[in-house]
């Protein structure tokens, strides 16, 4: 309900000496009150609204207020005038708010606050003026002005809240324990070791009750809180609130019937208002970082071109069509402005819940203060409700936005009635996949025991508690604050106050909120065990995350079983077989083995053998047939291994470099990727002395290629984040 334009609030805290008293093991009222203030200010800082805050301390050693005159209004200090709260204020609260050694009349302090509020809000518009009084009511009070004070509060429209160490009805219920004004159990033991209230406190309470009830009648007492319950409530950061924007429009049925309506976004995924800015790591200045975008041609030199030399284009299947922004604007679909036009009516059952589109639900009411429109819309809502139908409408937010087709559901509540509008899919949005049948598949059909195990599991895990009459939902997701925001604010706040400390751990209450409720966890334990027993579940262990080229190419390729054999086997095999066969040249059937054999024979110079091999590989790669790729990979491996053994890196390295250069032109990217996968790299100094390549360069040589490869699909594909998608709408 806080549709606040802005509010002004004065925190009025008692720092008098009695506040510092505490029972052993318990925090003093002063510490508790300070915590309430701190938490409250923190929330306000992150809520980022325009609410202004002032802080008045009383019982302080000094006196600083405009009313102080000749012994009156002493020991009351206006610590901060009305301002938007910031971290400066938080720091002041932390450091400067200290217990005083005096006492001051809390009614006097109230008057100072009223004066502050009235003077500083003059001429400006506020939706709400409020004073929050935090005190233990220990100071002596003169109540002769009480009636005037109450009258003035009422006239100025100032509301009042009290925060006390004990519940307001402590007197009546004896020693506490009862509800403190609708405020949860007043679980906190009384101060001063449960001694009961002092005379001052009893008189104070009487006054508090008198003030509150005269201002708000019975409900007034609901604005009196205990410190502990306030701290509890203030731990959760404020829910993000936005002022709903009214969207006035006409609901039309045909050309002749129109109803004045107004729509409000009712449900939509809320995002944090602020985004991260990139700053320089040293200076923390945003202006030190400049983002620079360059365009370059897809040639060897990556020639840069200016933005003016570029034009926008779109893919149309295999064609790329140049299509300038101007042309696009001119030729694009033009919507005719806002609309909420009924296309027809259909059965509610034909609208599938899982086909809801878009990111919002709009509630549509009749135009404000137009009772005829209200009656007309009501007739439609009730007609649809009784017939169990919905209106299919064309919805366009305004002239610039894309039209939608959606369903308007009738929604009748106790207090109001409206239409609920949800977007429905276009034909282009649907994907028709067929899945194997589950229900008719005997392999997956559960036995009677299995079904009953699931049945009792569901029973034990129901999130509805039958508490007497109405079943209560014990896990209302729509009451849970978005944990993302809570965690973000927690970290931001921590970092703001402790700039050098690491981020804090997650708050336990936040973690707990996201878990299965404890009652349910306890209740379903045996049922879960039963399910575990009845349903055998085994995780399939995957051999390897990374595939080698052999896995890719070798699959279903019966001619190449050798590829899978281990290297040692191969070596043994060829050393015998190769020599026995008397290899004379690198053939195309087993180039790698021929190569190895020739190198061992040493009848031809190493360089020549390498050349023969590379020629053969070029030939194989030239076919562009993936079937031959595995042969080439084996050959390259053999090439590398033998080169290392011989101690000559030159041939291998220069070949690999030239191969890399030719990859884009020859369309061998896939082959190259396989090489990378297999860990083939340049021969480095560490392996062969004569090499000019360091180990880093060697691995980098391959990774640079990987980057190019990894970047390419990102550019090509429209991998818009969901945020982008939503922004576009």
């Amino acid at each position: 309900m806080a549709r606040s334009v802005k509010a002004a609030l004065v925190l009025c805290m008692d720092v008098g000496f009695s506040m510092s008293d505490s029972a052993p093991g318990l925090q003093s009222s002063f510490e508790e009150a300070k915590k309430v203030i701190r938490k409250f200010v923190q929330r306000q800082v992150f809520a980022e609204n325009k609410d202004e805050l002032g802080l008045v301390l009383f019982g302080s050693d000094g006196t600083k207020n405009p009313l102080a005159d000749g012994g009156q209004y002493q020991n009351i200090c206006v610590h901060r005038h009305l301002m938007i709260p910031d971290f400066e204020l938080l720091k002041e609260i932390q450091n400067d708010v200290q217990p005083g050694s005096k006492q001051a009349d809390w009614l006097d302090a109230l008057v100072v606050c009223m004066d502050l509020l009235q003077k500083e809000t003059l001429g400006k518009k506020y939706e709400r003026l409020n004073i929050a009084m935090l005190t233990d009511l220990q100071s002596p009070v003169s109540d002769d002005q009480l009636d005037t004070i109450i009258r003035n509060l009422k006239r100025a429209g100032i509301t009042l809240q009290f925060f006390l160490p004990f519940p307001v009805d402590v007197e009546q219920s004896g020693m506490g324990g009862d509800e403190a004004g609708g405020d949860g159990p007043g679980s906190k033991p009384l101060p001063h070791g449960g001694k009961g209230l002092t005379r001052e406190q009893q008189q104070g309470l009487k006054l508090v009750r008198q003030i509150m009830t005269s201002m708000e009648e019975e409900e007034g007492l609901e604005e009196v809180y205990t410190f502990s319950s306030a701290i509890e409530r203030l731990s959760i950061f404020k829910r993000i609130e936005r002022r709903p924007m009214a969207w006035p429009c006409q609901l039309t049925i045909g050309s002749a019937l129109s109803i004045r309506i107004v729509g409000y976004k009712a449900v939509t995924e809320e995002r944090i208002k602020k985004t991260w800015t990139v700053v320089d790591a040293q200076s923390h200045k945003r202006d030190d970082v400049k983002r620079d975008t360059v365009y370059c041609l897809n040639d060897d030199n990556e020639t840069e071109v200016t933005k003016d030399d570029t034009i926008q284009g779109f893919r149309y299947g295999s064609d790329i069509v140049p299509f300038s922004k101007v042309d696009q604007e001119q030729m694009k679909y033009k919507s005719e402005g806002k609309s909420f036009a009924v296309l027809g009516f259909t059965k509610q059952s034909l609208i599938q819940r899982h086909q809801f589109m878009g990111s919002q639900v709009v509630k549509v009411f009749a135009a404000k203060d137009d009772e005829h429109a209200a009656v007309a819309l009501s007739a439609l809502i009730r007609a649809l409700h009784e017939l169990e139908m919905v209106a299919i409408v064309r919805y366009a937010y305004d002239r610039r936005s894309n039209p939608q087709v959606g369903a308007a559901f009738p929604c009748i509540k106790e207090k109001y009635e409206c239409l609920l509008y949800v977007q429905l899919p276009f034909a282009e949005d649907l994907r028709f996949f067929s899945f194997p049948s589950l229900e008719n598949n005997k392999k997956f059909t559960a036995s009677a025991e299995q079904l009953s195990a699931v049945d009792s599991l569901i029973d034990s895990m129901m999130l509805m508690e039958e508490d007497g009459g109405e079943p209560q939902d014990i896990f209302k997701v729509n009451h849970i604050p978005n944990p993302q925001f809570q965690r973000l604010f927690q970290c931001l706040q921590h970092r703001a106050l402790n700039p050098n400390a690491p981020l804090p751990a997650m708050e336990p209450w936040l973690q707990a909120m996201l878990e299965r409720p404890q009652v349910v966890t306890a209740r379903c334990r045996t049922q879960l065990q039963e399910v575990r027993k009845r349903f055998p579940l085994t995780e399939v262990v995957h051999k390897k995350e990374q595939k080698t080229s052999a896995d890719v190419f070798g699959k279903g390729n019966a001619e190449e079983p050798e590829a899978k054999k281990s290297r040692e086997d191969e070596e043994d095999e060829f050393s015998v077989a190769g020599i026995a066969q008397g290899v004379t040249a690198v053939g195309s059937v087993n180039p790698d083995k021929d190569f190895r054999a020739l190198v061992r024979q040493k009848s031809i110079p190493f360089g020549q053998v390498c050349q023969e091999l590379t020629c053969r590989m070029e030939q194989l790669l030239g076919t562009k047939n993936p079937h031959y790729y595995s042969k080439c990979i084996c050959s390259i491996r053999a090439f590398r291994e033998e080169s290392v053994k011989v101690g000559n890196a030159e041939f291998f390295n220069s070949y690999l470099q030239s191969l890399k250069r030719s990859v884009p032109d020859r369309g061998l990217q896939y082959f190259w990727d396989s090489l990378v996968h297999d860990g083939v790299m340049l021969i480095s100094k560490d392996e062969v002395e004569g090499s000019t390549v360091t180990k880093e360069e060697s691995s980098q040589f391959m990774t640079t290629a990987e980057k190019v490869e990894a970047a390419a699909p990102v550019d090509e594909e429209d991998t818009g984040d969901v945020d982008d998608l939503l922004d576009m709408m």
Partner: protein
Amino acid sequence: MAEWNAYYQNEEDNVEQEEGEESSGDYKYSGRDSLVFLVDASKEMFIKGENGEPTNFDMTMQCVRSVYTSKIISSERDLVALVFYATENSKNPQDSFKNVYVFHDLDSPGAKRVQEVDSLRGEKGAKLAAQMLGSGPTSLGDALWCCSNLYSDIRLRLSHKRLMIFTCRDNPHDGDSGHDLSARTKAGDLKGTGVVIDLMHLVKPGGFDVSLFFCDIISPPEDAEELGLQLEPCAKLEDLQKRVRAKEMRKRAQSRLHLSLGDGVHVAVGLYVLVRTATKPAPIRLYRTTNEPVNTKTRLFHMQTGTLLLPSDTKRSQVYGNRQIVLEKDEVDELKKFDEPGLFLIGFKPVSRLKLHHHIRPSLFIFPEEEMITGSSCLFTALLRKCSERGVFAVCKYTSRRNTPPRFVALVPQKEELDQNQTQVTPAGFHLIFLPFADDIRTLDVHQSPTANSMQIDKMKEIVQKLRFKYRSDAFENPVLQQHFRNLEALALDMLEAEAIEDLTKPKVDLMDQRLGSLVQEFKDLVYPADYNPEGKTATKRKPAEAGGGAEKKPKVEVSEADLRAHVEKGTLGKLTVPVLKEACKQFGVRTTGTKKQELIDSLTEKLSK
């Protein structure tokens, strides 16, 4: 399960990510889909149906066209080919096969191809086909061989290969066993290389008998329990399109996760996108002189020193309460981390607890992954059956990726549904519906307003009944997208003007008025007083703007400085209108971030009272 995974084992680890929020970058694109239409061009295909029904050939061409255009929109990288068999003329690489006409070889479809297919439609198309293709003897074996050559000529990696045969002849070789055998052998070879062969059989007088010949040609059904053979031939274009579409789109899991029931009981599920807003593809930047695409690189520089900044040279910052708060980039990611990716079951609720207005995102669909955890399907099916019987849904915590905060989702059971042709309309599985958090629900001011009486409601019911129709989710095309692609088509083919689109989102006002007749007036008489104008104030305001044809002219209003100062002193700035205040802000160089009146007033007051 095993059946449909057999062909794709290689892609286990790098399944293509669908566009959208889940694209995590861990996966990479694994190849392209391909589809070959093998169409019978025999005389029988050109026989007109009774009652002027289109010929089987015509229907096939329409169907091919719709696949072409939808490919262009949804997956332009996929390859499609169109081959005719039983033609008189032959056209294929090296012309080694007689009576086989490769109309389009395997390539991604473009505007030209769509036009070429168009030219084969209708009466004219039949004439052109007779001229260009002609009808001749049939050898399906040669045709299949030719198709397999098409596949082997492709250098790209194909992730999915499908071949669809369109014919109305169940015994194409008239019992010639030699031809039959060669066709079977060739079909076997194709299937051996991972090509899935489907039969789209069309109406044949006397019925199409799949068992005569084609049962040996086509790929076995993906699921042994399913009735694989479409025993009923397609008589209607709509059915044919539906059937082709269902077969043609290959499903890909967006991600595969564990669904944990607690206490270490996990099943594996795949998440699928069954519905996702289709958007215009992103524009590509081209070099003006050559129209070749250019690469865009973004780099960060230091403003003062001009040095290149690495990601590690920057931090992230936000300002709250006048204080700059700085975090490392890693910390920004880390604070979004809650759980490991997965679905965690919280409990169950009756379906009535899932409110209509609990909607923030389009849904996903989950289906068991037997490949990851064996036994998943059985438990999944049992859960599905029980949830559906008892009318409950499951509430789960869903973490899609490592550094993504959790969301709660409802898993709503869905049973499998088949249409009268035994085609799957909806698969069995759970729909995953995203639930809103407290922050996502806005507080609205609701006011009580008068309600209608039963007479008014009854009259509205009559109106509603008159305008009833049967909603189908695929009935509306997106006019914005359609227009965009028509524009591109026109530009690509040098057409003078883009083909006009039919905007299905517009109400058919004349038809509606005609149907309603006097009902509207009767209803208005019941709810509106005689002098009431439902167009109200807003309409009068809008009219001049419409007449002006777009650009609204904002009235230029200025206030003198003296006047403003007077207003400030008296605190009466609020009497001025927002445009005036904005103008004043500009005048005095007041920077305004807000557009709300109070914000403008505040900043002006601040400036002028100094």
